[in-house]
């Protein structure tokens, strides 16, 4: 097969693989816009109660209906994007940084440092992430900050493990020994040579974690341990609708779809990235 044809074929393969990435990235972009400009886009004030229009089903006036105190659900969903999205992003990034640091130190230095860090990480892994998040929320109190701390703590272990394994692998590479021979400092080797080579796996893992973070965050909101009402956080909206959804099922539909779409956006992005960087893996 001539070189040019092979190249073109490979490129086309790559483009079709990116369907997930395009869809996921597009959806994410949309959510970011909603998070940034939410209050400007929303047709109603999220706190405005209309006591003459309680639990109205979807209509031309209120596209997704109204909730139990007559607030416009569509507006609350739009403005609520920023809570869920920012909690997921901050927690994922913080867990990414923490996990990468712990994993890199453990894998690179080995010995006692490795034992201590690995022991700690394995310990955290034995606590189911939602249970850990609930215990932390119980200690620091129910708030967006507590929620973010809790999710961060529960997502550090998998990243740390992944990073440690990758660093141990990379440590044996010639370019690292070469860097050591030239007298480069440990920090510089880690930052300049090891980290860039580990970044792909970490980024993929982080985007999949972000989807999980949305799920854990909204579950805590649902349980009343996360963002507090009347803030229009999606999980909290579902929690608040619990007493009414038997008579007004539309209260349950919209927030759930919003959560699912955001998780879907992160999952598709993660899967798309994985296919892009590692086309060998068949799912």
């Amino acid at each position, binding site marked *: 097969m001539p070189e040019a044809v092979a190249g073109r074929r490979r490129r086309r393969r790559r483009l079709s693989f990116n369907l997930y990435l395009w869809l996921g990235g597009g959806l994410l972009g949309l959510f970011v816009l909603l998070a940034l400009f939410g209050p400007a886009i929303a047709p109603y004030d999220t706190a405005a109660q209309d006591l003459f229009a309680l639990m109205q089903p979807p209509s031309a006036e209120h596209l997704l209906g109204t909730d139990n105190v007559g607030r416009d659900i569509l507006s609350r969903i739009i403005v609520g994007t920023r809570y869920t999205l920012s909690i997921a992003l901050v927690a994922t990034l913080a867990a990414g940084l923490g996990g990468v640091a712990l994993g890199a130190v453990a894998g690179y230095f080995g010995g006692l440092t490795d034992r201590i860090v690995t022991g700690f990480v394995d310990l955290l892994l034995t*606590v189911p992430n939602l*249970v850990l998040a*609930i215990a932390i*929320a*119980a200690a620091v109190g129910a708030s967006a900050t507590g929620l973010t701390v809790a999710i961060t703590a529960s997502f550090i272990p998998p990243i740390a493990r992944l990073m440690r394994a990758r660093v141990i692998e990379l440590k044996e590479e010639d370019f690292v020994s070469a860097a050591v021979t030239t007298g480069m400092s440990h920090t510089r080797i880690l930052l300049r040579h090891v980290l860039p080579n580990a970044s792909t796996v970490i980024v993929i893992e982080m985007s999949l974690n972000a989807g999980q973070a949305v799920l854990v965050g909204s579950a805590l909101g*649902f349980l009343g341990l996360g963002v507090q009402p009347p803030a229009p956080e999606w999980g909290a909206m579902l929690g608040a609708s*619990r007493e009414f*959804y038997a008579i007004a099922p539309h209260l*349950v539909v919209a927030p759930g779809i919003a959560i699912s779409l955001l998780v879907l956006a992160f999952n598709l992005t993660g899967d798309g990235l994985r296919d892009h960087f590692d086309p060998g893996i068949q799912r």
Partner: protein
Amino acid sequence: MIRFLGQRLVTIPFVALGVVTILFFIFKAVPGDPAALAAGATATQAEIEATRVRLGLDQPLVVQYVNHVLGVFVGDFGYSTTFRGNPLPHILARVPATLELAGAAIALTILVGIPAGIAAASAHNRWPDVAISLTVIGLLAVPNFWIGMLLIAFLSVQWGLLPSFGNAGPLALVIPSLALAARLIALVARMTRGIVIEELRKDYVRTARAKGMRRGAILVRHVLRNVMIPTVTIIGLQTGYLLGGSVVIERLSAWPGIGDLLLTGVSNRDFALVQGITLVFVVGFLLINLIVEVLYRFINPRLRYA
């Protein structure tokens, strides 16, 4: 096998010690006076001081820590404000309900996930495959408690088919276990589909076909064996999800397990109860993982001699 079991069982107390230590210091760092909480809202200053001495809260932190750890290892989980005493018996009484829920979810995962994966693989790239694969992507994005809410809203409230909460009879188990299992079903179906597609291309399948064996028989006799080990792996890896998810689902369905009790502990600011349940979850996590490893050795003879 016995040596392997022994090695694993020995590590459990050490992990438990670590978890107890972390939780002890987290809850000590919480602002607020535990003695005042334990004595109740109407207690006088003298009563609070008496409670402080009775619970050993006047001791130095190190002494408190050592007493706490020693207590936990002989089954004394501290003073629960909800139960006015050691919460352990109350926690253990709730364990069977949670196990029942988790067990039902695992059963559903195997009974629905594997057939769905096989169905998708047998129709590779035709519409049933596409439909099942899209469903899998969808199920992995949907919050489990929302599935539960929808099931309750439609199956029990609108159509009156199933009870919506409580644990009266086996029908009450359907909605919570289905909500909890949805994610696992999706994972197992996706994995089964991948393996079956790959296996069906192999030489031994062609040989079996050439000998006149039916497709269905090949699937059951040969291909399915290759699915069992990864299924056990997935369930093992998702133990944390299963236990954590049970907390939300139990609250949603008023299922009287330890997850529901954990949330009661949180709303009562009952740290002894929260600590105790977290520890029970951790030990449960370790035991389930141990069972998974034992199962591996049964399913996969190669590991027995490794």
